[in-house]
């Protein structure tokens, strides 16, 4: 089968491997949270993996991404080390943020990952600023901002769309539409003809795709990233998907129909692309090996994280600020 836009079975296969890693990471993270092996808020990306994988596969190492509370998948897709991430969400020394950030703040700046974010839409305003820096510094990079469908109702998100177009910034907005804003159906609190129309109202060309279809994501991302990279200004990608788990690991789940959730499995982006890989000559044994490799890598990360020491107490006072970080405060 011949693929457009420089895609190949090999590249799709590599994306698939990343998706397996995301899935294994978050299936463990959610479980560990429910078992109180770690603390705080954990938002599982399970079911949405094709979006991060397909988009980030089109990026260069220098390209920035910013993410949101459901951020583990984006980091892995951009190449972050799952072990360093696992250490982070366990709050351990050696965590990618030294254990000081936790799940809602995973970031690896050396990979141009600006981080997950605990405030809805704030990562988007930060992303447009990153794009402004790129412009000002005359760099080659572009920026991708990931966010959920719920973010489209926050003022700063809408301001940021206007902003990106006013300054014609090199940024791709990626809306991961799982239909829910926390425990509320997004449709019940969102007016108008839809997310694409919102983006277009700010002059940003927007596409809508099935975000559970890795090929669709990869093709759309390849096109849009190309446009952004060649200076055509901001672009917007709306990807529908399914959030398999609760809003966070400790979700009581009182607000949605279990049948609806059960139906998500049929959309499984991993199963779908696995089928396609089989059809395109990748052996079942290879796929089995991929799964085992991902599971093994995460198991190793978990073992490392569970055994690792906590950060040194002195870390409390580091990296607060240069001026005025005196001990008497």
């Amino acid at each position, binding site marked *: 089968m011949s693929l457009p836009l420089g895609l190949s079975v090999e590249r799709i296969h590599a994306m698939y491997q990343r998706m397996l890693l995301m899935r294994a990471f978050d299936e463990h993270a959610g479980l560990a949270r429910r078992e109180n092996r770690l603390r*705080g808020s954990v938002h599982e990306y399970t079911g949405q993996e094709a979006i991060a994988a397909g988009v980030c596969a089109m990026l260069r190492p220098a390209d920035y991404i910013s993410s949101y509370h459901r951020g583990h998948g984006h980091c892995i897709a951009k190449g972050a080390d799952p072990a360093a991430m696992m250490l982070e969400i366990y*709050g351990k020394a050696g965590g990618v943020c030294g254990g000081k950030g936790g799940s809602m703040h995973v970031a690896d700046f050396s990979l141009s990952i600006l981080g997950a974010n605990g*405030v809805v*839409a704030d990562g988007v305003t930060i992303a447009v600023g990153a794009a402004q820096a790129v412009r000002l510094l005359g760099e080659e990079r572009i920026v991708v901002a990931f966010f959920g469908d719920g973010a489209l*109702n926050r003022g700063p998100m809408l301001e940021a769309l206007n902003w990106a177009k006013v300054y014609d910034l090199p940024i791709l907005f990626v809306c991961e539409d799982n239909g829910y804003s926390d425990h*509320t159906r997004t449709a019940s*609190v969102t007016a108008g003809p839809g997310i694409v129309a919102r983006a277009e109202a700010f002059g940003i060309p927007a596409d809508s795709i099935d975000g559970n279809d890795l090929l669709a994501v990869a093709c759309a991302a390849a096109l849009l990233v190309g446009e952004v990279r060649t200076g055509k200004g901001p672009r917007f990608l709306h990807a529908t998907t399914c959030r398999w788990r609760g809003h966070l690991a400790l979700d009581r789940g009182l607000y949605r129909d279990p049948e609806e959730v059960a139906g998500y499995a049929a959309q499984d982006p991993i199963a779908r692309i696995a089928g396609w890989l089989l059809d395109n000559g990748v052996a079942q044994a290879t796929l089995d090996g991929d799964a085992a490799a991902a599971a093994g890598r995460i198991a190793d990360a978990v073992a490392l994280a569970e055994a690792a020491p*906590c950060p040194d*107490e002195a870390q*409390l006072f580091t990296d607060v600020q240069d001026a005025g970080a005196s001990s008497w405060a």
Partner: protein
Amino acid sequence: MGVITYAQAARLALQQEMQRDPRVWALGEDIGPEGGVAGQYLDLQREFGRHRIVDTPISESTIMGSAIGAAICGTRPVVELRYADFGLCAADEIVNQAAKARYMLGGQVRVPVVIRQPIGFREGMAAQHSQSTEAWWVHIPGLVVVAPATPADNHALLKAAIRSDDPVIYMEHKELWTTTGEVDAQAAPAPLGRAAIRREGGDLTLVTWSGMLGDSLAAAEAAQSKGVSVEVIDLRTLWPWDRDTVFDSVARTGRLLVVHQAVKVGGFGAEITAEVAEHLFGALRCAPRRLGAPRTPVPYAQPLEALCRVAPTQIVSSALAMLAET
């Protein structure tokens, strides 16, 4: 009613006030079927319908702005902001509109809105979900600030807040949601601005509120065993705060220790300490002290977060040191 949780007490108060007054309603994210982050709205939408328990978009500015408009125009909204941290997304509306509208308009309007902003650490919620911002709101003319420490208070003070014609910043503590206590369902609204002496003592006045009450009482108990008698005052309302009760106590004990979970620098403890220093200077037998969080963002890692918390042992040793000074 018997023994219920702090979250249930809040739910009961809101339910009672909504039954009593059809102008009372609530709005915020996920307060409908999900019943709020701590179940503090559980099943209320079923009882009162979607127009009085309103699930909103993620639009903090408009949640707050619309509540202000609705309050000015004859209703009594209860705003749920989930975490005090997100309250910052509505800081402009709270400060520039809710707090000032009555004054700017020469008394033509009232803004009877309750603004719920839960505060405090809660197991690993990290930098963006753990702040205690009460000092900010106390500084803003026009606002009342309430911080209940017990289920009974969360019931009686929430009633009072809802019946108040002033805008009230209502700060529940996230780690108190599941604590239990006796609540009299028929209790009248508690008067705003009245502290409670939770433990009497003659050597030192400990002023605290919200999440630090429990540890303060434990510390007082421990101090007692070392021969120091600590009076523990739970402020309950931070603006207006009960200066009379605090001053009376300090006048007796000659020693002031303020304990709060918020960052010490610029925290509300500074105001109390400054007022006592200004007005009871002669009565003080030793330097006043404050205990609060260090001036760092809240770290995620458990031992680091623990270091940000005022420990009961710290309270005890401060009390002992103050006694040793004189």
